[in-house]
């Protein structure tokens, strides 16, 4: 009997470990969006759970990446930020560049950068150890995620369907973030909930 018990305990242990492994995988659509706590540019700790009850857009960025420049140079990203935060959506811009890598800046430099490019997110969050980025499986800049008011992930992937670094492609592109928010707010299913993102690699450490 004792042997059987110890077998069960070992089996349970293995099951628990494999569960942990499953949870360590990228964030999945229809599952709770991974929680994170990161510093904003004023040094304040901000958690995703703070925004429960609202739609939240997560935007991974690196100001020097040509794909990010495409969407800021054309005014596309700032336009989306202004339009959706105007509709009570929370927009969080995250940077997972590690110290010493492209796109890593201190909070003061970030403040200036965001002002210079006319960015208007709810908050800019710094993730230099890459923990939040890896929890979401953020691979590119930009890489976009949408969380619904219940805290479930409803979109992950590209910002739009024109996989290029050419600002001229923005006007004819189908914007997946716009679509996900519009459809979800209308009570419709999100038609494209998972797409392949495009851009520069996230500069993790």
């Amino acid at each position, binding site marked *: 009997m004792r042997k059987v018990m110890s077998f069960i305990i070992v089996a349970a242990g293995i099951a628990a470990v494999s569960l942990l492994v499953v949870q360590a995988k990228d964030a999945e659509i229809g599952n709770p969006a991974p929680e994170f706590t990161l510093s904003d540019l004023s040094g304040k700790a901000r958690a995703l759970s703070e925004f429960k009850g609202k739609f939240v857009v997560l935007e991974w960025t690196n100001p*020097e*990446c*040509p*794909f990010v420049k495409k969407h800021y140079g054309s005014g596309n990203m700032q336009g989306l930020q202004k339009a959706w935060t105007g509709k009570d959506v929370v927009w969080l811009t995250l940077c997972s560049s590690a110290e010493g*890598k*492209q796109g890593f800046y201190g909070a003061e430099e970030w403040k200036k950068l965001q002002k210079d490019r006319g960015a208007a997110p709810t908050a800019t969050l710094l993730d230099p150890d*890459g923990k939040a980025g*890896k929890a979401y*499986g953020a*691979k*590119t800049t930009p890489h976009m995620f949408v969380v619904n008011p219940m805290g479930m992930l409803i979109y992950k992937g590209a910002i739009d369907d024109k*996989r*290029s*670094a*050419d600002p001229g492609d923005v006007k004819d592109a189908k914007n997946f973030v716009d679509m996900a928010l519009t459809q979800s707010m209308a009570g419709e299913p999100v038609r494209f909930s998972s797409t392949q*993102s*495009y*851009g*520069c*690699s*996230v*500069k*993790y*450490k």
Partner: protein
Amino acid sequence: MMAVAASLTSEAPEIVPGRPFWVSVHLAMEKGWHTYSDPPGDSGLPTEVAWELPPGFSAGKIVWPKPRKFTEGGITDHIYEGAVDLKVKITPPKAIKVREATLKAHVKWLECKDICRPGSARVSLTLPVRKAVSGGGT
């Protein structure tokens, strides 16, 4: 200053009307830099070739050589380093009046090291056209 130099070469020394032939868009990359295959993997962008061909000529799709899978920070990319030949089949028309034909292409790529930047070049290649043999068959 770009880290990649593009050129256009042909496997055939001349164009035979109606006979498809292979050309290569050759990308030579500086040490440490890479370009992307199609699909590019988790990040990056495939190289694009936009052709400007004489009337009646057509170009096929790029035949992508097997890329190297490169993983860093959990991000896997399909890349080329050093040099790569992107082969494209060109089909000339059955009747060509000119003595030589110039193939032109606008090549666009994303070149990355620890950082990425877009690069582009216009390449061209002029080849003689073999004269139709009078009284020749089909």
